[in-house]
């Protein structure tokens, strides 16, 4: 029997007068990479925001690692292992690369009511942060200000910051957005490595990336999952071809 790390049941959200999430039910199995695709406005980011707690659903139920998330705030969800990367890069721009990741490590190293200790001299924060930078291939940029990074590097840092929160599961919202071909290939390689260690919910428009990485794919249209299955099943699904994949041909 497979175990679900994330279960979404009959989620409903009205947003700006639209039904952005319409009785949506999906699940992510433990250790799985589940990709969500769908045209713009299908409600993908709205779904991510409901999972992280940035917005709350009108009705429905989200269960993560056996816990009902209804009453948990965004920071609390981070502490039970749900990490998120942002579609529009959301970093600490006037901080260095290392400071960005170190701050995320700090968030998960007990409270921060320490007024005297120097963050920069604290190996308990710096070492784990450097490990993650090495893993994401950003260690040679550790002392660079985020504002001076290339777009591709910022997208990689976006994921590094999420990794620093000791997650059980990653919610990646269009990690390849705006990336060049070469950069996204490198990121696909990174994600392929991460796949073995984390459960991942991946929202992405880059079909090559989705079909090469995903264990299962769900197709979202107007807030509903019209199909869920393996990449092969999705490729050959008639409804999906009509609703979505057909558009590209």
């Amino acid at each position: 029997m497979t175990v679900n790390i994330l279960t979404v049941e009959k989620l409903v959200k009205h947003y700006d007068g639209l039904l952005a999430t319409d009785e949506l039910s999906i699940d992510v199995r433990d250790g799985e990479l589940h990709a969500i695709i769908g045209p713009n406005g299908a409600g993908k980011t709205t779904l991510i925001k409901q999972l992280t707690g940035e917005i709350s659903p009108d009705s429905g139920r989200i269960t993560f690692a056996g816990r009902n998330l209804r009453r948990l705030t965004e920071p609390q969800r981070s502490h039970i292992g749900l990490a998120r990367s942002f579609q529009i890069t959301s970093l600490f721009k006037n901080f260095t690369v290392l400071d960005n990741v170190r701050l995320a490590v700090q968030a998960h190293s007990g409270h921060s009511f320490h007024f005297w200790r120097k963050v920069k001299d604290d190996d308990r924060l710096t070492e784990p942060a450097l490990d993650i930078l090495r893993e994401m291939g950003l260690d040679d940029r550790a002392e660079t200000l985020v504002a001076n990074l290339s777009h591709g590097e910022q997208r990689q840092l976006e994921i590094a910051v999420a990794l620093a929160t000791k997650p059980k599961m990653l919610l990646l919202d269009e990690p390849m957005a705006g990336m060049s071909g070469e950069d996204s290939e490198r990121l696909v390689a990174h994600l392929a490595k991460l796949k073995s260690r984390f459960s991942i919910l991946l929202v992405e428009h880059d079909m090559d990336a989705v079909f090469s990485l995903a264990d299962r794919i769900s197709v979202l249209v107007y807030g509903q999952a019209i199909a869920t299955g393996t990449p092969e099943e999705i490729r050959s699904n008639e409804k999906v071809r009509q609703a979505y994949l057909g558009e590209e041909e």
Partner: protein
Amino acid sequence: MTASPRYVINAALLIFLAVLPFLTDWAGDSFYTGLVSRILILAIAALSLNLLIGYGGMVSFGHAAYIGVGAYVVGIGAFHAFEDGIDWMLNGYAQLAAALFGSAVIALIIGAISLRTRGVYFIMITMAFSQMLYFSAVGVETYGADDGLTIYSRSDMLGLIDLNNEKSLYYLIFLSLLVVLYLMHRLVGSPFGNVIRGTRSNEARMRAIGFSPYKYRLTAFVIAGVIAGYAGFLMANLNDFVSPDLMHWTRSGDLIIMIVLGGMSSLFGPLYGALAFLILEELLSSIPLTVGGLRIGEYWQLIFGPLLILIVLYARNGIDSFLPAARKEE
């Protein structure tokens, strides 16, 4: 590590301030010791406000309220010691404890409510609270209402330091400034400071990586309030006088101007800002030129205003931008 030019300039300023009373003795004019005492007290208050504005992105427009609380504690203590013969109320340590505790409690109340808002609302609500304190002080007849209270006896520090001696008072103020500068330096580089700066930079991401910024911001708000309350304690002793005017919203505005003028993303910025603000006020208001029967010095703000606008427009970080670059801080 070799000393950067920035470091040398800051150190030179502090050394100058350390020997200033002897320079004024030598020049035979103690007026400047009093002026610089006032500047340094306001610099302490501006430094504390910069923790909120410069590092925390919380534009509190009511910071003078805490100066008022600290100053009124001294004024009220002296009043009851003088009028009712309650001697312990003149005890400087009791006054100091009451000033710090009082400003902490008031900052806690104001912060707990104000920090639930953001942006312009935060500015307006902090200003509204400080005006409430201002009008409260205006309303209390016992303590002089809007005429204020003359302090007939400065805080009695039980022989440890004589505040009636202008030079001793100056050195207490100067040492306090050094302590506050060092405190801010440590605070900004600490895990706590990291949360405060991170929340200014990107609050949404802070929540996403697991921080609940409210309690940290409230703590910063109280720390800043307590330091400003301490500045008020010093101010009352320097002026021998307290009045509601200390808490007027324009006084809070002056502190913000000092920060903007000096540079809000640097440790020493508020000190440079306080020096520039008050020295310019002193110089411009003593311009002897008379045009059409109007003495220009009386309208010094007509010159100061455009100067401030130029600095805001052309120097992104105030006076600090004119100093040689330090190693990058953030």
